C-alpha cells in the first residue's frame, strides 16, 4: 500500500496528540500535577489539540473533494472512517474544557473533562486502528496485533511528550509518572512490533492467485500478459513496492532509535539525571520512531489486487 505522506503524518501527529491528551486528562483526574502552574497544564492541552488538529487537517489533504468532508460524519453505523470522524469531533469539547479548566484552575471541571477527554482520545485511536484492522483485503492489517499497536504508539509518544513538557517546566515531581509511562510504552511498542513483524515474516494466510482467478483446479496460475502496459491507480495506490528493500533497516531504526532510545532516556531521567536535556530529544525520537513504524505499516502491506498483477 502506498504510504501517502498526509496519512502517515496524520496518524503519527494525531496519535501522539491523543496519547498526550489521554495521559494529561487521566493523570490529572487522579491528582497528578496538582502542584504544577496553570500554564503547564494549559500548554499540555494546547499541544495535544495542536497535534490533533494538524493531523486531522493533513488527513483532509488526502481527499479528492475536501470541501465535502463534513459528509463523512453521517455513516457511523457502518463505517469506521465515519466513526473516527465522529469520535474526533466529540473529543474536542471536553478537550477544550480541559484546557480552560487547567488554565483557570477549576479542579473538578479538570477532573471530569480530563476523564472525558481520555475516553474520547482512546475511542478515536481505536476507530483509526479499526479502519485498517477491518480490511479483509490487506492481511498485514487484519493481524490481531494491529489495534494494540496503534494504542501502544499513541500511548508511548503521548507519554514521552508529556514527560518532556513536565521536564521543560522543571517540575521534578510531575516528570516521574509520564517518564515511567514512556518507559513502559517504549517497551510495549518494542515487544508488540517485534512480535508483529515476526508473524508477518512467517507468512500470513490469505487469498492466493489461484483463488483470485478461480483457476486453481487446473493448477498453479502464473501471470502471462498484463491488462495494461503502463501504471494505473490500482498499482500506484496498492502495488507500492519500494519500501520492502529497506524494510529490515527501517525496522531496526524504529526499534532502536524510535522506541528503545527514548525509553532508555526516560529511564535515565527517572534514575535522577537532569530530565530536560534527556526527555526533549527522547520525545522527538519517539515521534520519529512512530513515523517510521507508520510508514512501514503501509509500505509493507500487500493488497489482494496485486495477486492479479504479479
Amino acid at each position, binding site marked *: 500500500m502506498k504510504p501517502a505522506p498526509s496519512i502517515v503524518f496524520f496518524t503519527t501527529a494525531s496519535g501522539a496528540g491523543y496519547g498526550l491528551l489521554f495521559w494529561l486528562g487521566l493523570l490529572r483526574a487522579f491528582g497528578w500535577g496538582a502542584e504544577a502552574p496553570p500554564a503547564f497544564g494549559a500548554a499540555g492541552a494546547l499541544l495535544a489539540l495542536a497535534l490533533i488538529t494538524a493531523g486531522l487537517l493533513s488527513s483532509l489533504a488526502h481527499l479528492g473533494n475536501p470541501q465535502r468532508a463534513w*459528509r463523512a460524519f453521517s455513516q457511523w453505523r457502518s463505517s469506521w472512517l465515519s466513526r473516527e470522524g465522529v469520535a474526533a469531533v466529540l473529543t474536542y469539547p471536553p478537550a477544550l474544557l480541559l484546557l480552560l479548566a487547567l488554565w483557570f484552575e477549576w479542579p473538578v471541571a479538570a477532573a471530569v473533562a480530563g476523564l472525558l477527554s481520555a475516553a474520547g482520545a482512546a475511542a478515536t485511536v481505536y476507530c483509526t486502528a479499526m479502519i485498517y484492522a*477491518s480490511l479483509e483485503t490487506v492481511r498485514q492489517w487484519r493481524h490481531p496485533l494491529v489495534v494494540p499497536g496503534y494504542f501502544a504508539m499513541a500511548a508511548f509518544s503521548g507519554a514521552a511528550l508529556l514527560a518532556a513538557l513536565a521536564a521543560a517546566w522543571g517540575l521534578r515531581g510531575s516528570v516521574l509518572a509520564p517518564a515511567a509511562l514512556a518507559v513502559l510504552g517504549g517497551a510495549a511498542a518494542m515487544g508488540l512490533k517485534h512480535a508483529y513483524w515476526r508473524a508477518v515474516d512467517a507468512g500470513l494466510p490469505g487469498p492466493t492467485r489461484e483463488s483470485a*482467478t478461480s483457476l486453481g483446479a487446473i493448477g498453479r496460475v502464473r501471470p502471462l500478459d498484463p491488462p495494461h502496459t503502463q501504471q*494505473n491507480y490500482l498499482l500506484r495506490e496498492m502495488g507500492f513496492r519500494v519500501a520492502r528493500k529497506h524494510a529490515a533497516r527501517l525496522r531496526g531504526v524504529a526499534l532502536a532509535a524510535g522506541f528503545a532510545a527514548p525509553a532508555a532516556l526516560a529511564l535515565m531521567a527517572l534514575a535522577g539525571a537532569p530530565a530536560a536535556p534527556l526527555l526533549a530529544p527522547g520525545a522527538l525520537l519517539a515521534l520519529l520512531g512512530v513515523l517510521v513504524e507508520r510508514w512501514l505499516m503501509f509500505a509493507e502491506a500487500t493488497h489482494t489486487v496485486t495477486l492479479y498483477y504479479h
Partner: protein
Amino acid sequence: MTSLPERPAGAKKLGLVIDLDTCVGCQACAVNCKEWNASGHSAPLPDFKPYSAGAEGVWFNRVHSYEAGEGEKGRTVHFPRSCLHCETPACVTVCPTGASYKRAEDGIVLVNAETCIGCGLCAWACPYGAREMDEDAGVMKKCTLCIDRIYNETIPEAQRQPACVITCPTRARHFGDLGDPDSAVSQLVARRGGQDLMPELGYGPVNKYLPPRERSSALTEAKPVEDAPTPMDISNPLLRWMDRVLSR
C-alpha cells in the same frame, strides 16, 4: 446510506457470467466499456497523458492473461476483471459519506459522484480492484453494469445489455438475473459449474466465472499420424514398387 439494504431471498441480483473457456482476450469488452461509459452514467472516464509516455486512465474492465497448470494440462486463460456487484460489499459499508451504495431493487453497486469525498477507502476495501479513482474530479468510479443501457427505453430492447456483453465477439459474457434460479444465466452457471472469485473473503460476488472446459481426450491424446507408411498403406502399385526399390 452505506448500510446494506434489506434484500429478501430471491431478490433480483443483476450480474455477469464470464466464460473463461471462450474468452480470447481480444480486449473488445474493455474498449467498448470505456467507449460507452466515457459518456455514460459515470462520465467522464479521464485519461492522463493519453498521447505520451506514461499514458493511463480510468477503466472499469481489465483483461488479464494467465497460464494455469503444468505440462499437457497447462493452458492460457484470458481473464476479464470488473466489479462483481457483491452481495455483501465491503466497499459500500466502509464508505463514510453514503456515496457508495447497493441498490435494493437489483443489487447493482454504484457511487454517487455528488457526495463522494474521494477518500479512496472503498478501493482499499475491494479485493478485486474494481474501483479506480477519477483523479481529475476527485471521486471514485466503477462499473455501473451499464445501468444507463439496461434500463434505457430509448434504445432497441435487444441492446439493453451492458456494453461489454453486447460487444463480445465470442459470446464469453452473459448478463442476467442471478437471483432467479430459472434465468438463463443461472442455468448456465449451474450447468458449467460457475465459480466465485476469492470466495474465502465472504463478500458473495454475484458475477460468476465459468471454468475452462476439460479438453476432450481426443485432443490431448491424439498423436501425429504415422509418417513411415508400411507397404500395405500404399494402394498405388507404382508407388508401392518405388517404395520397395528406394527402401533397399
